[in-house]
């Protein structure tokens, strides 16, 4: 079988690794090197539509979508899903996210929880 590749790694393999890591770095740069100044907000979207937005500060919320319920706990640093009745529990296992651009995805409930920078937050409060 002349299609069989070598079984010993060589320097061309390193090239592949480098390309993959470069790709990783490129993607990472987009999220992790983005300016993190300013306050961060937790944005909750169900089916792609924003359903809630709250500051990164102690709070607990419950959301329902697509027949599933999940509960999130927000602290000053991070947000996590504390409870979910979905079969996979992936969102719970995600643990805490804190960095702007990070997100927790709950696929069964079709809910995405994202930490977003407010950038230059337009308002601290709304009166009236």
């Amino acid at each position, binding site marked *: 079988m002349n299609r069989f590749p070598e079984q010993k790694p060589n320097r061309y393999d390193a090239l592949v690794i480098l390309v993959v890591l470069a790709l990783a770095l490129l993607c990472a740069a987009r999220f992790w090197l983005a300016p993190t100044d300013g306050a961060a907000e937790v944005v909750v*979207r169900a089916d792609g539509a924003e359903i809630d937005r709250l500051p990164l500060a102690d709070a607990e919320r419950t959301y329902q979508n697509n027949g599933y319920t999940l509960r999130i706990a927000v602290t000053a640093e991070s947000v996590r899903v504390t409870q979910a009745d979905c079969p996979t529990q992936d*969102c719970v296992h995600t643990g805490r996210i804190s960095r702007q651009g990070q997100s927790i995805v709950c696929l069964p409930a079709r809910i995405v929880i994202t930490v977003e920078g407010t950038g230059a937050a337009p308002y601290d409060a709304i009166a009236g």
Partner: protein
Amino acid sequence: MRFTTKQLTLCALLAALALALSYVEGMFPAPLPLPGVKLGLANIVTLFALCALGAPYALAILLVRVLLGAMFAGNASALLYSLLGGLAALGVMALLVRAKRLSVYGVSIGGAAAHQCGQVAAAIVTLGSLAPLAYLPALLVVSVFTGALTGFVTGMLLGNRFLKNVAE
């Protein structure tokens, strides 16, 4: 695409093996808690089939594995994850195998990286949000290791004289 009885048997065996592998990897903690994302252990089978039998056979095995896997999981979005992940991996590996300079490790790592890209693409499609893209860097780093692992295992399989005989 003609099957000899031996090849048919081998394909069926490989599909069953791939199915078992994707089930087994579901028991491991996922590399990252993005739902549906898998390590890509089943790529061992795809790569072996690609090398030992050829791309059409590998594709057939892949499709059987993905469809049966989705049926067992009873989850349509999981189907999209493994389909896009698997197809991307197969496509990239089929290309890389032609670049004769690469060892089984290079091919496998390329395939693993493509597998993760495919899965993330599926997540983006399913959720209608670019959020899963944030996981891609970490998934790509993980893919270097899973790719090396699957490359190692595939290399051993390809070196196995019994399997070689069967394939030929």
